[in-house]
């Protein structure tokens, strides 16, 4: 059984990811270093960082908010909301991108109105953030909700009777209790945002040096037989994701003891 699982994970996960690392450095460090200096690459770094940064903040605030709402309150439509929350994971990101264009595109629902007021959504950063947030929406909430459920409401009620208002109760009691689930959710959500391809590729317009993110660079340079750039960008994406997971798993058990 163990052998089967290990073999399966190796073929599916470990070997392909390792190969990326291997291929990236197959000609030494110099070409990689050179590829990283490329203006298209540095621009992609910047765009990816901005989009991911904003999206993760929105995901975190929304995730904690909706978790509290769904776990701590009972209201009509709660079960429906709970189900809808998973929709972004079920819908193909390309469809998400198209849907956003239908609403925010120049000829979309109110994209035209926004554009006439000088605010471009599609083929610009706002649209890319929207697409990224959409596809990573439930990740924080799905990590936080079970923990909120498990810690129950009594610690919060105890804090209230001791004089803490709702803000103080959240900061001093709820937040520390969910911090590891939250951290894990943020990392997952960050990894998802960094790697988002489908939805972003539709709404970004892939304008080189303007709206290209790292995953788009990977795809485009691969199509153009520029394998060094493709592997380098891939390596960076994979390395960031793995590094954040490693950091989290090192920190977590220490806290629990």
């Amino acid at each position, binding site marked *: 059984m163990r052998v089967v699982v290990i073999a399966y994970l190796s073929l599916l996960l470990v070997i392909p990811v390792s190969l990326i690392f291997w291929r990236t450095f197959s000609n030494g460090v110099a070409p990689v270093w050179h590829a990283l200096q490329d203006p298209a690459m540095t621009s992609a770094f910047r765009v990816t960082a901005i989009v991911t940064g904003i999206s993760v903040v929105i995901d975190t605030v929304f995730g904690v908010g909706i978790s509290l709402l769904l776990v701590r309150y009972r209201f009509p439509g709660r079960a429906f909301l709970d189900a809808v929350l998973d929709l972004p994971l079920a819908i193909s990101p390309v469809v998400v991108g198209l849907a956003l264009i239908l609403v925010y595109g120049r000829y979309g629902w109110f994209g035209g109105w926004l554009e006439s007021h000088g605010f471009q959504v599609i083929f610009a950063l706002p649209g890319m953030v929207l697409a990224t947030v959409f596809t990573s929406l439930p990740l924080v909430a799905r990590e936080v909700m079970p923990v909120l459920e498990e*810690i129950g409401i*009594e*610690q919060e*009620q*105890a*804090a*209230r*009777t*001791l*004089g*803490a*208002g709702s803000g*103080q109760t959240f900061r*001093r*009691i709820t937040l*520390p*209790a969910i911090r590891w689930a939250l951290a894990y959710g943020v990392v997952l959500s960050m990894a998802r945002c960094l790697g988002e391809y489908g939805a972003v590729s539709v709404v970004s317009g892939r304008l080189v040096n303007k709206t290209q993110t790292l995953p788009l660079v990977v795809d485009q340079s691969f199509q153009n037989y520029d394998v060094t750039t493709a592997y380098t960008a891939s390596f960076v994406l994979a390395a960031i994701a793995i590094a954040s997971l490693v950091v989290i798993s090192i920190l977590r058990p220490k806290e629990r003891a």
Partner: protein
Amino acid sequence: MGIDVHHITKRFGDFVALDDVSLSIPTGQLTALLGPSGGGKSTLLRIIAGLEEPDSGTVTIEGVDATALAPQHRNVGFVFQHYAAFKHLSVYRNVAFGLEIRKRPKDEIRARVTELLELVHLDQFADRYPAQLSGGQRQRMALARALAVEPSVMLLDEPFGALDAQVRRELRDWLRRLHDEVHVTTVFVTHDQEEALEVSDEIVVINNGAVEQTGTPSELYDKPVNEFVMRFLGPVTHLGGHLVRPHDIDISLSTDPGSHPSTISRIQRVGFEVRVVAVTERDEDVAIQLTRGQADRLDLAVGRQLWLRASNDASVLDTGAAPVAAAAARP
């Protein structure tokens, strides 16, 4: 008056948890809300604390109408059955929590927390985390935490319900002594009649969302107003169509006017106590509780003829539920 509850009604869906309950709890006393689970006593306590909102009625704490106040403005200390310890904070920080929220000076907090930890015998454990404490220690910590903010009333919801029998007994005695020292108006919820009789100054019996009777432990035990209270507070048996306590039955070996002739069907010795079951002519099984001395003097044996009657000072209730010898409930 400490706490005044006026015409409180609370429903959960179709279930009526409290039905027009009014109650006065005197300042400085230790009052037990006693009743079976699901009877509404915890709901009443939570309404007093502001953790639950009544559908109608008012709550007054120390003369202040608290009905619309959020829990953090009621100045109550609340102790939960499952401790509600702040798991990420040390014992010291748990107890200091309310004072930190009130932004008291560091020195004052240190002095007060140290004093309280001594009071609850946890001064050795100040730097530990709740997970490193036993259940009894966690509950003492929770008590210290609630006392730290000098609440005008302390509310304890089945405080010893999650502890094993031995610790329960210790904490019960300890709570009584603590209350004699601190004198804060205290209300605790319990379904254990022994706990209520042993610890409290006053008992409120609550059943089916309504108050059955209020009084001191001896008033309730000796003069229950109805069958429910009588049965809930201690053992009962039937004699001549009346309810009576098994230790309130006089035994005579010869006929006696007004007594019920019966035959012993079973004798059981439990330590210092002897339990006898006798069958009357009306075919009632009467349980009688005797001391070993009494039983030896009477020379009891299965099959022997006895004449039974309720003792003169016994509390006796008609099984028709109307009180016979019982006095009315206190107003």
